């Protein structure tokens, strides 16, 4: 198997993560968003595993395992459970129409390619492309956070952003395992905290819509 084919496969998997990011923006139902997120995490695990294979870096298998177990299985299931428990309205409420969001997403991808490719002119081709993809995923995650009104979708946006970071981390050679593990754990901790807060907020205010929560802010005069 030559360098070209391994490069192509890495590229394909990275692009899959990115496409999943776009899909996240397109979904109109909450459960579909969660499923898409699980798919993205799966693709991420595959990317990490493939990088472990071609970089001969066995610790990346650990990363892949973490991504698979936590992000592709535990987090989506937990969010599913939360949504059911809390009886959250199952539509995704957008602050910006989906068409415009997609176009903004495309523009962001173009921006990151324009940005990353010249900067990393000296680096290996594989790293360059992967970094551009990873950055696009990060920006799409951010875009999701700002164009969705529901707290659960914001959490998913945040997790997608994390996926982008991990994609960048696995593509660059020599990223220590400790960093990836700590990133993964921080995501898990964040997830737990979000869950607890959802319950607390829900108990207190009987809603998870951000617009309703705004009225409870202490600093508003």
């Amino acid at each position, binding site marked *: 198997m030559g360098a070209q084919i391994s490069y192509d496969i890495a590229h394909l998997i990275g692009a899959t993560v990115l496409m999943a990011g776009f899909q996240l923006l397109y979904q109109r139902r909450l459960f579909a968003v969660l499923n898409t997120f699980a798919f993205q995490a799966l693709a991420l695990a595959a990317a990490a595993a493939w990088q472990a294979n071609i970089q001969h870096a066995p610790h990346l298998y650990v990363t892949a395992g973490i991504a698979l177990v936590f992000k592709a299985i535990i987090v989506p299931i937990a969010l599913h459970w939360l949504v059911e428990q809390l009886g959250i309205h199952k539509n995704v409420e957008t602050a910006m129409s989906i068409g415009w969001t997609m176009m903004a997403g495309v523009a962001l991808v173009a*921006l990151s390619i324009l*940005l990353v490719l*010249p*900067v990393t002119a000296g680096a290996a081709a594989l790293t360059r492309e992967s970094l551009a993809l990873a950055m696009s995923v990060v*920006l799409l995650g*951010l875009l999701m*956070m*700002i164009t969705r009104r529901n707290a659960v979708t914001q959490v998913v946006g945040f997790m997608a952003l994390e996926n982008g970071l991990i994609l960048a981390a696995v593509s660059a050679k020599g990223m220590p395992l400790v960093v990836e593990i700590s990133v993964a754990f921080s995501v898990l901790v964040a997830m737990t905290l979000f869950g607890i807060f959802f319950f607390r907020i829900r108990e207190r205010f009987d809603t998870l819509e*951000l617009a309703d929560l705004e009225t409870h802010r202490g600093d508003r005069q």
Partner: protein
Amino acid sequence: MLIAAALSALLALAVLGVATGAEMWRHRLVYLCCMIASLALLAGGIKHLGQTPGTGPAIILPIGLPWMAAHFRLDNLSALFMVVVNLATAAASAYGIGYCSHLPEPRRVTPFYPLFLFGMNAVLIADDAFMFLVAWEFMSLSSWLLVLADHKNAENRHAAFVYLVMACFGTFCLLTCFGLMAGGEGAYSFPAMRAAKLDGVSGFLVVLLALLGAGSKAGLVPLHAWLPLAHPAAPSHVSALMSGVMTKVALYGLIRILFDLHGEVNWAWGAVIMVVGGITAVLGVLYAILQDDLKKLLAYSTVENIGVAVIGLGLAIAFKGSGEKTLAALALVAGLYHIVNHSIFKTLWFLSAGAVITATGERDLGKLGGLTKRMPWNGVAALVGAIAISALPPLNGFVSEWLIFQSLFKGPSLPHWAMKFGVPVVGAMLALAAALAAACFVRAYGIAFLGRPRSRAAAEAHQVPVSMRLTVAFLAVMCVVLGAIPVTITDALSHVVTPLTGVQFAVSADLGWPWLSPVSSTRGSYSGTVLVMTGVGLCIITLLLARLLGTSRLRRADAWDCGHKESIPQSQYTGQSFAQPLRRVFCASIFAARESVDMPDPGDNRPAELKVRVIDPIWVGLYAGIGRGVDFIADLVNRIQYLTVRRYLLMMFATLVLMLLVVAVRQSQ
């Protein structure tokens, strides 16, 4: 050595000042020690001035920033200002020995007073920009604390706030100014700055920033707004120092930067500074005439005198920039002479005002009157101060203003047409300011000290403690002495001026002692010494003649009652009535002064009132405008406080994308 010991003593005194407690003798002890330290510093300064011109040894102390030691040096200019500062601080400290027991809360004043003295002296001997600014801030903050001494009064809190804002602005300007002079390598020591050459733009900015930074401390119009607020708010001996001395330290900073560190200031800047000085002088004295509060009046008069001194400095820059070094030296000597004089008579007047407030509890001119009878020491001393500040011969104020006029008369010899026409205009402004200053102090002295008491408090005024009387007497004597030996003073000042203008110069060169002949022996000459001797001689002769020829028989007659039989004190001329003609002539346009009569309706038995409305154009136009602008921006920014989480994220996201775009665009170029 002496200076270092005195400065450390001042720092130690500040610590002791904290521990004074309620017992008054401890406060008195601190003031006494402050006076001794000031006298030591004064002696150090005079000793250095007496030596041949040159700079003292540089002292490097391992304090301050880790990569930069602290540099100190005493040269002629610092020594002169050290004399100016410490003469007044010694007097004010001596005054404080008696005055501290009359303060409402002496514990709020005593600890900061030595710090204030320390700060002013440290500015003078600093030899690098860092120490200069640290000392400058030391001076500003300690005086700010002193302004806040009577913090329960809302007016004082407002004054302290305005002062703090202006002090921050000034230091910011000076910081930037020194930063520009230090250049890219960060050469912050003064010798390195002297050696560095400034290019056109940074040379321009350095002068502008120095003018803004030092000018805001000195009280140049339109940066004077804090002076009339802060100076009256502080206890009187501190206001005397803030007005009489701290403004001089600011001018020291200006002279140090413009004549010494910068070196090659364009003549056009001299013209600008001169015009600013002229406007400051005229506006300052017009403000002063309108005031009813004695201390406010004095603070505005300080603005006027700073303007007069700055005219001299600006003229010196214009001459120096045009290559007329001798004339530059003359103008600078005149400016420095006025600085010395003002520090004495303004300290004298503020200390007298403090005595008046102690004795009567009033500082409103409308409630004073007849004080010279009940407080003869202060009455005579304030009269001497008023004569000096009105620039009447033979006292010191006349000499310096005369010298400034003499150098102004040489202005048309400058090659630039702007100066040929501009200098006479500034001369006219100076003449107007001098005349109005005389009117202002005739009013201040006449209303406060002469006539009949206008209130019960003034009628029951009592003598103040002996230390407060002795200090004003001492300062009054100094006014006479400085006027009587002008040649000695100008010779000492020309030592100071020589390194700054690069020319050896003596004002008395043509006719010799005791005659001042600044331009030439035929153009104009003056001798304070001869005048004083003649005056004293004439007085003695008159007294003798009166003794010899007059009769000693006792005669009785009614005192002249000014045309009022059975008059009540309220029927006297008041401060307002004295100011009215000047207000109508000069202030109708500048201050939009209007008078209106508030007539009660028929059947209403309240008295009719004459109301005067005066609008301060600079406060309303400039400061209030800036205040509104800040409020507007604050309102805009305030909205950001209440966004939703999503909008905050949006802002972060937009910033990120914008920055990425900038990077992308810059790369593609």
